[in-house]
């Protein structure tokens, strides 16, 4: 599913990586627990999370995740943005809950990891 399509479905704002709207992800994984994210072996994952701190970005870096969607209007800090920029990531932000976000994307065909 294209990033632009995901943003449109969730009325999401692209905070970083707007120019990569045509790139695609295959899987969605929703978690606030970073150790759970670190168990993933697949590539092409969109991380959907309510955890909004520098470790979210660090975890994505270690897990080779380039696309992160923050639910419930979580505000991305300057240090997060700097690191995400450095790691060439795409950051999206939606006001929808983690549950609603996941439901919409699952229904639209984004695959589940487990």
């Amino acid at each position, binding site marked *: 599913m294209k990033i632009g399509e995901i943003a449109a479905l969730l009325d999401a704002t692209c905070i970083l990586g707007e120019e990569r709207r045509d790139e695609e992800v295959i899987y969605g994984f929703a978690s*606030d*627990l*970073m*150790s*759970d994210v*670190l*168990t993933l*072996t697949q590539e092409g994952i969109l991380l959907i999370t309510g*955890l909004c*701190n*520098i*470790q*979210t970005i*660090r*975890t994505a*870096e*270690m*897990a*080779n995740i380039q696309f992160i969607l923050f639910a419930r209007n979580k505000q991305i800090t300057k*240090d997060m943005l700097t690191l995400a920029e450095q790691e060439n990531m795409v950051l999206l932000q939606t006001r929808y809950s983690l549950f609603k976000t996941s439901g919409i994307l699952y229904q639209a065909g984004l695959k589940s990891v487990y």
Partner: protein
Amino acid sequence: MHFEYTILDNDFANAGAASSSIKKILKQLNIDAKKIKRVVIAVYEAEVNAIAHANGGTIYVDIDDKGIEVTIKDSGPGIADLDLAMQVGYSTASQKVREMGFGAGMGLPNIKNNVDLLDIKTEVGVGTQIKMVVNF
């Protein structure tokens, strides 16, 4: 090739900085991406552990053509029951650690799943030394 990194006590903002550096070095060495991911996930979890439980520590990294060996030494409280600590779901993490997205008792099991060799030496009141090897 030998590198060392210092992990400072309670320095959550920089948790992962050493793993990030190791990732870049391994990429430059053209190591297989799947191997790199295994290494950095194990080191990152260990880094978080050292900050969360052990007042920081030192990371020693040795790389040759056969693989990478990473040893993390700390002078923290040690692990009272290592078998229990290796079980998924067992955790003594603080609220602060949980707020950072960790502390669910998955760190050591995650490390074990990603390395070819794991050797943990620990003594209550003295500290912990974790040696991890990933073969290339």
